[in-house]
């Protein structure tokens, strides 16, 4: 075929790098990707500069797989830039789709984080109180750092996104479905999550019967029966309200689903659906009984919103005591 190969870009914003590894997890099929696409930008594995992207025509990139949440000015800059240069922008992985682990920072804020990281944590020695600044003057000139946001956002909260590929990281099989769909041009309607719309329970081979949970256990507290539903045994599992496509790998090895594939179609708030499911199967008829059972489930919001806090209806913890804060900066010396 004399046809030019479609151009592919991959980028990481606020993420751990696991999504990049997941792409390599395609093993020999990565060669199909290299064969089908012309990779024009992938800072993780090849030497590209942002200027290379800026020099491109608008819409020159055919597909951009964007992983990572948006938590600082640099992430936002690249999100806007790659949106402008890409025909199809895919939110790749749980962070860009739902905020994920970086998004748990929305349970706190910038000031509290900087206080802990640059001052209070036991391993920090910082007598001069040095905190990253957006701009610092040194003899050689001005040094700049990207501004650090109070609230982590998802990619779709910053720019329009065409497709979402869930997972922390997306399973090789999910990536394959997406790559094949893109190569063949048989794409679902824009705005879709690519993958099947079933729950983890549907793919989980454990035996399920009526649930009446008397207390919850942490994973280290019991050795679960290998064939029975983990939730029935009191182990937290988000599989009841989480999209599958992963093959229910975690519950199969005795660890409850953490919810990384996010909500199913039509769900506005992933955490609320997990909450409903968990609360419905406890063995309590009074508020006191319910409270006693929930005392054995520490950090419920952390469980429910582990992967989708920025993408949830409330997005973050209230700043201040649930009362309105003045809009704008609260500290005089604005950190980065």
């Amino acid at each position: 075929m004399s046809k030019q190969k479609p151009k592919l870009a991959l980028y990481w914003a606020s993420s751990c790098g696991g999504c990049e590894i997941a792409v390599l997890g395609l093993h020999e099929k990565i060669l199909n990707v290299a064969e089908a696409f012309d990779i024009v930008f992938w800072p993780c594995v090849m030497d590209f500069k942002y200027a290379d992207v800026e020099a491109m025509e608008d819409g020159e990139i055919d597909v951009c797989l964007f992983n990572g949440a948006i938590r600082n000015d640099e992430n936002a800059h690249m999100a806007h830039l790659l949106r402008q240069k890409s025909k199809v922008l895919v939110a790749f992985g749980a962070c860009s789709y739902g905020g994920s682990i970086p998004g748990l920072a929305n349970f706190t804020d910038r000031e509290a984080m900087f206080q802990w990281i640059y001052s209070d944590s036991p391993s920090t020695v910082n007598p001069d109180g040095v905190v990253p600044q957006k701009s610092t003057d040194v003899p050689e000139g001005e040094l700049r750092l990207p501004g650090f946001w109070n609230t982590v956002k998802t990619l779709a909260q910053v720019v329009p996104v065409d497709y979402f590929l869930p997972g922390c990281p997306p399973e090789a099989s999910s990536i394959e479905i997406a790559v094949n769909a893109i190569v063949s041009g048989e794409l679902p309607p824009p705005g879709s999550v690519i993958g099947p719309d079933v729950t983890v329970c549907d793919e989980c081979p454990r035996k399920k019967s009526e649930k009446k949970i008397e207390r919850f256990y942490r994973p280290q507290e019991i050795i679960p029966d290998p064939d029975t539903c983990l939730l029935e045994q009191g182990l937290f599992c988000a599989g009841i309200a989480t999209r599958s496509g992963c093959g229910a790998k975690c519950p199969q090895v005795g660890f409850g689903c953490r919810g990384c594939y996010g909500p199913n179609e039509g769900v506005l708030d992933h955490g609320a659906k997990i909450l409903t499911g968990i609360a419905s199967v406890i063995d309590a008829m009074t508020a006191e009984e319910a409270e006693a059972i929930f005392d054995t489930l520490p950090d419920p919001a952390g469980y429910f919103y582990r992967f989708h806090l920025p993408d949830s209806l409330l997005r973050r913890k209230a700043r201040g005591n649930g009362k309105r804060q003045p809009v704008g900066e609260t500290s005089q010396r604005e950190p980065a």
Partner: protein
Amino acid sequence: MSDNGTFTPVIVGFLCNWCSYRAADLAGTSRMGYPATLRDIRIMCTGRLDPTFVLRALQKGADGVLIMGCHPGQCHYQEGNYKAIRRFALLRRTLRQLGIADERVQLHWASAAEGVQFAQTVARVTEQIRQLGPLDWTHNWPNEDPYAVEEAVHE
């Protein structure tokens, strides 16, 4: 509506069809006075209340949410309100972690005959939320994106 003492909260009420909605009717037809703060939504049973409804109300600008249904043991569907008790207990713990005061989201019971209790509950909850002030949830994330083309780029 401002902070200067004249603040009137907006409270979204989820009232069960069989008890509390009728209690509200009774309070109305009996010409009982209570603060006009409640925007009531009739649901068939408190067991139908998805926590998403509560979160949506708070996100969309409500200062509080009041859920009311049949007394335990008197549910039209036998045990819908027991489900509500369980969900509410867990929802309240979750909301606490998100920095939302307990007074803002409350669960109470009123039978179809308890118009007085209904009116008193609305008055009491209104006063508690008035003390707390406006919630104004979306103010928790002012735009921080220097590259945003316009306000509220893409929701």
